[in-house]
């Protein structure tokens, strides 16, 4: 009798793997020069300070070495990356005005449908520019602003605020790809939630990178004022090519006193993507940031949403899942800086690696001398689905305050044979048993996701069990 062997299949990414024609698009030359950077700024008709900022960032980019601690980015040749690709349309506030092929793409991704059913507002970016941005009247009547960041930059009312905050949490000197972002950023959303305002339905921005060999560098800036509340959802995907695509976005979140922001992301880039994204939140007194983060796509991923807790009793929680399949090296995790008394942080992550994929959980918890009474717990579990894959856990802690409680727990292992046997002894097939266990493993994260994304994740971790081998 043939020995039965079951496999958990790779994520089925065909759902996202469709390409549109680039006909009629404006694509700037590949590579990275002051001329290209100046040209991007000129087309956007930006204030002078922004052009200066871009050129300064480019200098910083050129002076920084590649990171030596993470996955190799040798395959990323900036001379082959088009940093700016403008779709053949301007931004619309109705889907009818979006060109058909682009609209169809977002239809297939389910964005307009989600907008109709439960979102308070949607922004959709295609390559380097936003093609759609709209928010319900109820939200705008509350004084909430949700627009393209470039659009906001052209409004005197917001320009000063943007100039005050832009790339202050993530300065170009932070790392090489923050500098790159500063030089060539394009598109992204601006959200302003006035003090005391609570939005019951989420806002969502979706980033689609269609152009082969292009980079996407959107900038998301969210300001949640004191006592305000917001749930923001971010989705990303791209079709697969055989050349490197680059995503180096930046997300800067300012959470005021007693304010609350939940930031949910599913990154589902294609396997040729280098995802070198940076996300950071600053939280003031009694405020709270909640990160929900799913990382599935990319050839190489570096992603560590960071919380800087500057106000007394500020809180952060990070819930993340990373699934690395064949050919992927996903280095993900989180950073927390606790810089005020009685701050709280929790981190809970799940990692799955399969088919030769590599997933690394990397974290840092830094407790400054000012953070007396800080408490943090980190829990990290990794599941190995076969013996060809790899899973590393590199959690760093630097504690300099008294009266703190910092706990860290991590485990790595595979699906226990005893668990499979137990389920099988109750009449469940091996395939079902394994699927059940993997689903159970991912569930604490899945249940935190918005419904649509939870369903998407279930599709993503679609467990196709295969038949007999040998």
């Amino acid at each position, binding site marked *: 009798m043939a020995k039965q062997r079951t496999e958990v299949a790779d994520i089925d990414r065909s759902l996202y793997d469709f390409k549109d024609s680039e006909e009629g698009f404006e694509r700037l030359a590949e590579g990275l020069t002051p001329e290209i950077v100046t040209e991007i700024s000129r087309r956007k008709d930006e204030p002078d300070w922004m052009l200066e900022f871009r050129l300064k960032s480019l200098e910083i980019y050129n002076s920084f070495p590649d990171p030596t601690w993470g996955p190799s980015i040798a395959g990323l040749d900036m001379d*082959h990356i088009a940093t700016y690709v403008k779709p053949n349309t301007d931004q619309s506030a109705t889907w009818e005005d979006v060109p058909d092929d682009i609209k169809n793409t977002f239809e297939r991704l389910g964005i307009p449908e989600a907008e109709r059913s439960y979102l308070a507002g949607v922004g959709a970016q295609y390559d380097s520019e936003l093609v759609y941005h709209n928010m319900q009247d109820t939200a705008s009547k509350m004084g909430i602003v949700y627009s393209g960041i470039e659009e906001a930059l052209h409004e005197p009312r917001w320009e000063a605020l943007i100039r005050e905050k832009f790339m202050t949490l993530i300065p170009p000197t932070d790392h090489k790809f923050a500098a790159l972002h500063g030089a060539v950023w394009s598109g992204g959303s601006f959200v302003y939630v006035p003090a005391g305002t609570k939005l019951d339905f989420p806002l969502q921005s979706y980033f689609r990178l269609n152009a082969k060999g292009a980079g996407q560098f959107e900038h998301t800036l969210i300001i949640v004022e004191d006592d305000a509340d917001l749930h923001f959802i971010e989705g990303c995907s791209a079709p697969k090519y055989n050349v490197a695509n680059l995503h180096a976005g930046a997300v800067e979140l300012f959470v005021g006193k007693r304010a609350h922001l939940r930031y949910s992301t599913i990154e589902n880039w294609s396997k040729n993507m280098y995802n070198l994204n940076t996300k950071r939140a600053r939280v003031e007194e009694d405020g709270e940031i909640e990160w929900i983060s799913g990382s599935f796509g990319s050839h190489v991923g570096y992603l560590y949403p960071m919380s800087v807790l500057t106000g007394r009793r500020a809180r952060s929680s990070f819930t993340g899942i990373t699934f690395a399949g064949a050919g992927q090296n996903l280095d993900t995790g989180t950073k927390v800086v606790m810089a005020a008394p009685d701050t709280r942080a929790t981190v809970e992550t799940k990692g799955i690696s399969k088919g030769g994929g590599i997933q690394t959980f990397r974290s840092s918890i830094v407790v400054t001398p000012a953070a007396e009474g800080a408490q943090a717990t980190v829990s990290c579990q990794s599941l190995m689905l076969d013996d060809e894959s790899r899973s590393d856990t590199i959690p760093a802690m630097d504690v300099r305050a008294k009266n703190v409680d910092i706990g860290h727990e991590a485990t790595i292992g595979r699906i226990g044979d005893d668990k499979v046997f137990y389920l099988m002894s109750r009449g469940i097939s091996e395939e079902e048993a394994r699927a059940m266990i993997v689903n159970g493993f991912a569930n604490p994260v899945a249940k935190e996701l918005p419904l649509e994304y939870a369903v998407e994740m279930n599709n993503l971790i679609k467990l196709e069990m295969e038949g007999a081998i040998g």
Partner: protein
Amino acid sequence: MDALTIRNASAMPAPTWGWLKMNNAEVAIPAGLAPAGAVDVDAPQELFDNARPFEVAVAEMQERVDAARGEAADDRACLRAAKTGGTHADADGDLGDLDVPALSRYQERACREEAEGDIARAFETGMGHDARSYLNFLAGEPVALGTTEGERARAVVRVEGEERAAAAVALDVVAAPDSELDLVIELDGTDDFGDADAAALIGSELRVFAGARSRVNVTVYVCALPATVVLDDEGYVLDEGARLTVRHVVLGGGTTYTGLAADLRADGARADIDTSYLATGTESRDFAYTVRHRGRKTVSNILANGVLAGTSKKVLRGTIDLVHGCKGSEGTERETVLIASEGVDNKTVPTILCDEDDVAGNHGATIGHVRPDQLFYMRSRGVSPEAAEALFLTAKLEDAALTAPTEGARAAVARLAERIAPDFDIDEADEEEAA
């Protein structure tokens, strides 16, 4: 001798963000140290007589390992990636086979070492190559010790510091199959030290080959003075079923470095590392532990328990590496730190690297302080907060004295206690145990 800095000492195998300044240590060797000080090796004559070169023992094991190695080529994606140097774009920007992952540097090194299977080349010590070279230079010809098959023996090594002097010992140990060796290393500044505030350096470089089913028990006591630099560098290779038990008791010394790397090369090898540390004043402690599980059903436990007082600093880099092929292995790492005062800097990075599915890796760290309910309990019995803090310190000393393997180690703890907790009578505690 001139001042010297050993860069990239005690480095983590898998580094993380540079801004955390935890990836490695820079060892500053004070200027003007004369090579002097006392090194005593107290062991039965047979241990010297039966010594065999460490390299020979490793080479013999290599032959056995190679003979047992299967011919089947391993075609895993990560090995292919290491062979081709990872993902690169060709002239057209084409990335080639996207099912081959891009590796980080340490992952590439891990794949290369796995493909080579060369024990000698993969040999490492916790503090790394440069620190090892320095210690070997300082110590001169290594002292070689060897046990006899089936026998048990004990050796005590003392390195005593002296003001403005550097002293070190280099030890090569080969434990014969089925033998047992107890090795005690005392790194210490005695009453004859001279000016206690003067710079000094003491160190030990240890290489151990633990033969099949042997048991090697190493205890290192570090009770040096607050201006002394201490380097303790250890590297182990374990053959089938060998069992290594290490106790590091680091209680005194201005800047101390403790490095340990263990290669659990063969099936059933086991390493238990138990570390107890204390730092007071402006002292700093640096620990770098790497355990590589290569054989099947290998086991490791790294347990560290420390108290940090004053404005002391500590870094613990612990890495459990579950190398491909170490099926059925289990690695555990656990640290408990008590921060007893303000101004302490405590860094910990408990890493697990895992390239195998049929394994279990666990780590945990608890960093805490005297909790309010504990403090209230102690205060309700008349113990002031200052006395409570001192109690944690003296409890460490007391435990170290009670479990000291030699009279010399016990005396060293007593001297240290006299210096940092003068009110505490360690002899009393000791008698109590005896009574």
